[in-house]
């Protein structure tokens, strides 16, 4: 016991240094290094050959064991201080200091491993669980089968949402890529609700995304945001006002750029769906609009008599 206290004390001296550690991870979020990506190592079963993931914390938590009623199943657990029980044999004191110092949620944390005792055999068989925990003075530790120790809820942030391969809206206009100066040119989008399944922090996440608004940059310096994608208008649609149509005041070629905003929700390991805070912005490929002007003339000439009369040549001949 004295030896342990000494170790814990030394461990604390090293704490300041270790605490500085997470801050030394890069702030640029490139995510390529261990420090940026550490997930606690859990003693989990080998994944199935078909690549399916074990459930989180699957170790020792069969359906029977996690049933609500406290049944004496002949299995008990006790914990062992990793440092005091294994020094000399395999752990040198310096490493012990590092280990206990990582139990830094509260003062005097001690790093332990749970040992399973099977009383159904005679003599009872003791087996390591490979499950670790930090214990703190004055707190009753929970054995590994009592719920999910330290299982942080998996939260999908906007950054994770935004990094999904969300298919952008496709932009259409009528008729084709043409419009007329001062007319209502119908531009509209087709967007789809989408679903993604991916592994994240030892969990399987299902994410649903659906379009909620559309920001149109018409390429002439104006923009508008709509909550509807719009749709095709009837007829030749050279001058049909729709919720998403736009009037160009000059001729020319314009690139319409559309950004679609998606809302999302997600389910962790088949649990209930919960909303994601924030919306993902998904840009569409630029869509070219050529805006032409019309000229109207009333003529009564005969092109045979006056071959250069209005309407007797094409604009290309001029």
């Amino acid at each position, binding site marked *: 016991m004295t030896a342990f206290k000494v170790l814990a004390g030394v461990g604390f001296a090293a704490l300041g*240094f*270790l605490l500085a*550690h997470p801050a*030394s*991870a*890069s702030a*640029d*979020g*490139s*995510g*390529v*290094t*261990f*420090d*940026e*990506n*550490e*997930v*606690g*190592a*859990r*003693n*989990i*079963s*080998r*994944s199935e050959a078909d*690549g399916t*993931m*074990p459930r989180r914390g699957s*170790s*020792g938590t069969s359906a029977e064991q996690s049933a609500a009623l406290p049944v004496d199943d002949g299995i008990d657990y006790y914990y062992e201080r990793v440092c005091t029980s*294994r020094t000399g*044999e*395999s*752990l*040198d004191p310096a*490493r012990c200091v*590092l*280990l206990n110092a*990582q*139990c*830094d949620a509260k003062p005097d944390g001690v*790093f332990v491993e749970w040992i*399973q005792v099977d009383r159904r055999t005679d003599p009872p068989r003791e*087996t*390591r*669980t*490979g*499950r*670790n*925990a*930090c214990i703190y003075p004055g707190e009753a530790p929970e054995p590994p089968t009592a719920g999910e*120790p*330290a299982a942080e809820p998996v939260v999908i942030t906007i950054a994770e949402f935004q*990094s999904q391969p969300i298919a952008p809206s496709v932009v259409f206009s009528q008729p084709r890529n043409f419009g007329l100066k001062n007319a209502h040119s119908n531009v509209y989008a087709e967007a789809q609700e989408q679903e993604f399944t991916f*592994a994240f*922090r*030892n969990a399987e996440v299902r994410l649903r995304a659906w379009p909620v608004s559309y920001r149109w940059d018409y390429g002439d310096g104006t923009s508008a945001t709509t909550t509807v994608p719009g749709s095709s208008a009837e007829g030749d649609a050279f001058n049909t006002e729709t919720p998403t149509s736009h009037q160009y005041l000059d001729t020319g070629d314009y690139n319409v750029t559309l950004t679609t905003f998606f809302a999302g929700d997600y389910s962790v390991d088949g649990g209930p769906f919960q909303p994601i805070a924030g919306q993902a912005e998904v840009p569409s490929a630029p869509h070219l609009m050529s805006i032409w002007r019309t000229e109207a003339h009333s003529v009564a000439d005969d092109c045979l008599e006056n071959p250069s009369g209005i309407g007797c040549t094409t604009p290309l001949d001029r």
Partner: protein
Amino acid sequence: MPTKPALADENSKEGLEAFTRYWFELFNYGYATNDWKAFDQVTDPACGTCRNVLTAVNDHYKSGGWIVGGEAEVRSFTTDFVPNIEGSISSFVEVDQAAAMTISQDGTMEGQTKARQESIDVVIALWEDGRWVMLDFGPPEGT
């Protein structure tokens, strides 16, 4: 491409240490090449830290960039080589990681990480069908 030492295929304390050191060499090889075939062959797909790092590295290479540095170095390896109820064996490793730079497609530096030192992690490995498989790697559970 790191070569697997013969010792790394032995079911012994020394074999597990050789395998663990080889495994971190595969990590380094992956950083430099984004080739994770050999790594995947000896790693369980549920390894959380591995998946997170691999995804980030893979995304970066896919964008046309590459990574300089980030080499892991196993400074110490400790195990008492006692199997647990899952049949796997936990070991403690002190792993340093060199500073890493992410370079974008046009050759400019995109991001930079600092070197990592004085960190103790757990690696959990399983002897399966005559070879070691890494199940998980990360800071000890509960810390």
